């Protein structure tokens, strides 16, 4: 057994232990969202086909491709290509990678460990130091083989940035089909890259605004089983569904507190919408805002002590921050146009929002005090930002011009690395989970 392999911890689904942030040569330096990309080589490592893995061809190569796609999607790494492929048994020769200019090298070695299990030894090497920096043995059921690659990419990301990776995560969104008035909406969750779709609802009722709890096990969404919509809490493990008992009115815009114990939401009554918080254990309700106008889209800071929300109390949609008990409400957005649907980054350094100007919706970020605002997307209709657990990427909905079919996109914080998530048909209103259990 190699030294790195000895360091790894074994488990059934995955191997834990997020490595400490690297301060050595393999650190991605990110300042104000601008990164100096790390030169990284992620060669194909052949393993041959592995039983029960639903990938065509060589499992190891398919895994290498997923690791590469994950890391390159962030805009924080620049790929260094080296001819040829490695095999799982092969010792790593650093010279070709050093010659090609790679600073980092990721090698994942896959093999079957029997009874439907796949082991993936993922190692991050410092090419110039010619040594392994960190390593994990990831064991997954063969049916969940893609998660092994996402876990490997998470390990590299965490080591090189100091932030948790957002690859072994789920996206949840609303899939809409049909033309009015016969439209159907289903809640669908997929891996962050669109693979492994699961239908959470079957389209019998209108559903909207799904949101994950940080742990990804519970969700809350708006359900129109009858014309009076309800906020519905669902446990994805047990399948148990619980409508929240709320006062009369139209609830919407629900989000979990970081500890998962509270849901904050907007309740519209007689033309006035205010923000409320409900304690899930006791069911007790607390009204947090009471000014005239539409107060909506509340989102907790990662420490749970502050909430950012939007209000049109000034005459147009603007962002405000308040303490979690509703005190100290303070406007933070002052640029031109309107500001809507704020979302507080899990890293606590930024608030994402939808900027509304001249019929155009775009995604932007600002610091929690409202300074250093930047618009980072350039579509005509980009909205509904949802943070990755890394705080280094944002999922959002983009609706194109003529065709008008919404899709989920992911952007980095510079707006330079953007890609569309492959979904089966139109998708809107994304929510991005935290790290999967």
């Amino acid at each position, binding site marked *: 057994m190699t030294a790195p392999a000895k360091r790894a911890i074994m488990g059934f689904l995955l191997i834990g232990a997020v490595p400490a942030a690297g301060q050595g040569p393999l650190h991605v330096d990110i300042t104000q969202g601008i990164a100096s990309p790390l030169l990284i080589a992620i060669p194909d490592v052949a393993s041959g086909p592995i039983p029960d893995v639903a990938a065509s061809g060589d499992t190891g190569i398919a895994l290498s491709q997923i690791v590469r796609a994950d890391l390159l999607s962030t805009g924080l790494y620049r790929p260094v290509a080296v001819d040829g492929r490695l095999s799982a048994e092969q010792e790593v020769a650093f010279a070709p990678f050093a010659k090609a200019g790679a600073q980092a090298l990721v090698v994942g070695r896959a093999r079957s460990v029997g009874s439907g299990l796949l082991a993936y030894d993922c190692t991050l090497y410092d090419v110039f130091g010619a040594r392994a920096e960190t390593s994990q043995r990831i064991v997954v059921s063969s049916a969940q083989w893609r998660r092994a690659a996402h876990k490997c990419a998470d390990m590299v990301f965490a080591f090189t940035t100091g932030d948790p990776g957002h690859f072994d995560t789920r996206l949840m969104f609303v899939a809409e089909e049909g033309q009015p008035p016969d439209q159907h909406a289903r809640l669908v969750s997929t891996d962050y890259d669109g693979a492994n779709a699961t239908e959470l609802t079957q389209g019998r009722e*209108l559903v909207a605004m799904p949101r994950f709890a940080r742990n990804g096990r519970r969700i809350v969404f708006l359900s129109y089983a009858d014309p009076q919509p309800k906020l519905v809490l669902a446990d994805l493990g047990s399948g148990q569904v619980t409508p929240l008992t709320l006062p009369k009115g139209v609830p919407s815009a629900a989000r979990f507190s970081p500890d998962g114990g509270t849901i904050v939401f907007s309740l519209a009554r007689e033309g006035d919408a205010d923000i409320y918080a409900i304690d899930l254990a006791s069911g007790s309700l607390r009204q947090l805002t009471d000014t005239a106008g*539409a107060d909506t889209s509340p989102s907790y800071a990662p420490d749970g002590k502050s909430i950012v929300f939007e209000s049109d109390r000034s005459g147009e949609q603007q962002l405000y921050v308040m303490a979690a008990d509703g005190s100290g409400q303070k406007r933070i957005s002052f640029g031109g146009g309107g500001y809507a649907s704020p979302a507080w980054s899990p890293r606590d350094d930024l608030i994402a929002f939808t900027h509304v100007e001249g019929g155009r919706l775009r995604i932007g970020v600002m610091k929690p005090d409202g300074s250093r605002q930047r618009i980072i997307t350039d579509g005509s209709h980009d909205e509904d930002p949802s943070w990755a657990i890394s705080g280094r990427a944002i999922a959002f909905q983009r609706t194109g011009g003529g065709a008008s079919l919404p899709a989920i996109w992911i952007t980095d914080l510079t707006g330079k690395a953007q890609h569309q998530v492959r979904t089966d048909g139109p998708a809107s209103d994304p929510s991005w989970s935290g790290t999967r259990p």
Partner: protein
Amino acid sequence: MSHRKSMTGVSCLRLLQGAAIALFGLLASCQRPTQRLPPAPIFEMREGEAPAAVHDENALTPLLRDNGGTASIADFERFAGIRRIYFERNRADLTDEARGTLDRQAEWLRQHPDVRASLHGHADALGTREYQIALGEKRAAAMKFYLTAHGVSAERLSITSFGKQRPAALGLDDASQKLNRRGETVLIGVPGASGN
């Protein structure tokens, strides 16, 4: 019930038009001078003239899937002309045209005190999702306020909002989005009524 059924569309409309014209005169005096009349009015009403016929296509082709042509829904639609009203962009105040439609709805609801209604507020896709829920609710609340001010008891009216979650038209063009800025009056407990 038989009395209601015997009131055909034509006789119903005539009765109503007298009342509508009287109300229209009243409302016109309250109208702010800067407010533009919305284009393509559903009813053309000029004082002193014989009222024009319904010429909104939606009134002729009911938007409800009216399976079997039940009398009450058909009656409501003939009487009220249309169950939808439209709003200006990002506004929840009622246009003159919307008031005219709600006048007729209020009249019908006063004549049918056993019928309840759900008022559905909708918003266009141009605004942000969560804000549009609040806007839709504000629109439905404006409808409720107007109907109760015109003699329909508040207990018979419930309000809800779909925001932009249930569009009438999908395109992001202006013409499509105009159709989405709407309020719908959906009868409850009436044969043939269906939620939306």
